């Protein structure tokens, strides 16, 4: 078990270094950073001095090492556009994105899994077919369109929910949360549904097909033959056996939710990292882009690590194999 964790951690470090390398390349190949920082009338001598001061003339490996070293200490440079440390910029935007992602993921799981179980258990019912048809819409409509439709219906026509922003936020240290005010809760509803709808339908369809598969197995038939209640059979025996693939996909999708919050945040003007990233792209604000890239990679790595550990919790067969190998 510990050997496994260490192995996965080493792999994670390789992944992070690779991503850092790509992010670092941005600085070298997307325009000249000096041009971005100084005005047009700066002399060549001044430019050269600045270049020397910033260490841009150092050999490539040295600069990369410096970059990684700084990143490890949380120093990601200064945003060209906002003239503020990138670390602080991201930190101020991170809570908004994470809270939105959390709500979207909760929505996807809390609605997707029960609907998947239901449609898997009763595939022939009319309501199941209705859910499946609806899920097709969720899968095929692009996110921005869903967002705009939701705004049209709930913000413009019905006027019950706000169409943009986070509502009132409360500061808890450096973390700003919208979960402590009514307007914050109201504001998160539409973006969370928009962001989570695709994942919700995906999870629902996945759980459904896994349920259909598991319900045909001998151990479910035997569980029935033992006279266990439907509840025990469906939720105790069947659902747990569908969990391994569901955890895999959910983990990947959670990363995707955080990473692809960009579109949703743009539609709802949600003050998160995605919006920051998009604005940075428009200004070629490379330090912000590079940091965003590294941070998202970091989330993916952490989530995948957790997913792998969850397998061990769910499936005893994996645990035993590890013990045997360890002995």
């Amino acid at each position, binding site marked *: 078990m510990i050997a496994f964790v260490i192995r996965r951690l080493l792999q994670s470090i390789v992944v992070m270094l690779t991503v850092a390398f790509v992010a670092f390349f941005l600085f070298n190949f997307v325009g000249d950073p000096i041009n971005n920082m100084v005005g047009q009338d700066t002399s060549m001598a001044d430019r050269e001095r600045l270049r020397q001061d910033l260490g841009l003339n150092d050999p490539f490996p040295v600069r990369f090492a410096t970059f990684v070293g700084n990143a490890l200490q949380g120093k990601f440079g200064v945003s060209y556009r906002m003239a503020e440390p990138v670390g602080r910029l991201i930190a101020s935007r991170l809570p908004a994105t994470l809270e939105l992602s959390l709500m979207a993921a909760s929505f996807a799981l809390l609605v997707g899994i029960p609907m998947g179980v239901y449609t898997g258990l009763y595939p022939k019912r009319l309501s199941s077919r209705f859910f499946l048809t609806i899920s097709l819409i969720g899968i095929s409509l692009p996110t921005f369109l869903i967002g705009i439709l939701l705004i049209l219906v709930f913000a413009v026509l019905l006027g019950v929910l706000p169409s943009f922003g986070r509502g009132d936020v409360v500061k808890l240290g450096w973390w700003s949360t919208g979960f402590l005010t009514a307007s914050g809760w109201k504001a998160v509803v539409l973006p969370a549904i928009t962001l989570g709808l695709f994942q919700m339908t995906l999870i629902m369809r996945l759980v459904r097909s896994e349920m259909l598969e598991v319900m045909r*197995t*001998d*151990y479910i*038939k*035997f*569980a*029935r*033959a*033992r*006279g*266990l*209640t*439907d509840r*025990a059979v469906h939720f*105790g*025996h069947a659902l*747990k*056996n569908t969990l391994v693939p569901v955890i895999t996909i959910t983990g990947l999708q959670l990363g995707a939710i955080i990473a692809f919050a960009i579109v949703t945040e743009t539609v709802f003007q949600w003050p998160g990292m995605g919006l920051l990233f998009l604005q940075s792209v428009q200004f070629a604000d490379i330090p912000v882009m590079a940091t965003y890239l590294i941070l998202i990679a970091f989330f993916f790595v952490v989530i995948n690590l957790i997913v792998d550990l969850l397998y061990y919790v*769910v*499936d*005893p*067969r994996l645990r*035993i194999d590890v013990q045997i190998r360890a002995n």
Partner: protein
Amino acid sequence: MADPLLKVEDLKVEFPTRRGTLVAVDGVSLHIDPGEVLGVVGESGAGKSMTGNAIIGLLEPPGRVAGGRILFEGRRIDDLPYEEMRKIRGRHIGAIFQDPLTSLNPLYTVGRQLIETIRTHDEAVGETDARTRALGLLREVGIPAAEARIDHYPHQFSGGMRQRVVIALALCANPRLIIADEPTTALDVSIQAQIIALIKRLCREHGTAVMLVTHDMGVIAETADRVAVMYSGRIAEIGPVREVIKHPRHPYTVGLMGSIPKVGQRREKLTQIEGTMPRLNAIPRGCAFNPRCPKVFARCREERPDPRPTPGGAVACWLNAAAGRPA
């Protein structure tokens, strides 16, 4: 004679398909007395398992009981609501399936599965008492070191040991009847005899009746009190084991007996019954066995023979009707 424990009258099981309805079990009548072992033999697809599944109310959809009655302890059970039937399953009628490797849920320890079953049928039993009973059951079915094994997962058991666990699970609530559907087919030959002996011993000790579905005539000869030979969804011959083996009346039974190689007999080739059983959608007119029957005559191709009484049983063959026992 006391009332039979189980009485099946003119049972008919149908599978509606797009190309018309297939009749998998057609007019099967049989009974099982308390404590009796009834063997049911026949080729694959003869309707043996289907009859068993119909009795425990677990026909796989779209299969359904289309006619006849099933009476358990004098009470009709084939038309019970699902929840009523669930209470009978496991509690009064247990089941053992063919493949012990897939009959147990891989994600739970055998102890948990035993305790769950015990507590489902006897809600007054606490967790600790149920565990004590589970341990007792494991010892009874011959699991060595039961105290340690109770917390193991199914994949840590060998095939034979798993089938022992399955038997323990089937016996949890002391049912009066066990439907054993090919309980040894998936096991090593060396283990088969052990498992059969175990089932036989336990059922004698508990006074449990058994419907032993198998295609192994040897197992029947050794274990059963009476035997029903099924062919193409019907009972060809039923009667006391000794009588059926010594004086088979139906040509199909004669063929079955003949195809068991006997020790001490020198033969170049194994005897076999020519041809295969008809598919469900192409059952011939008259007697279903007539295309393969060595003693076929005109009437067999025209009219379907109904079971006629013999000493202690019945046989469905025109030979029996016309001139008694065939030579």
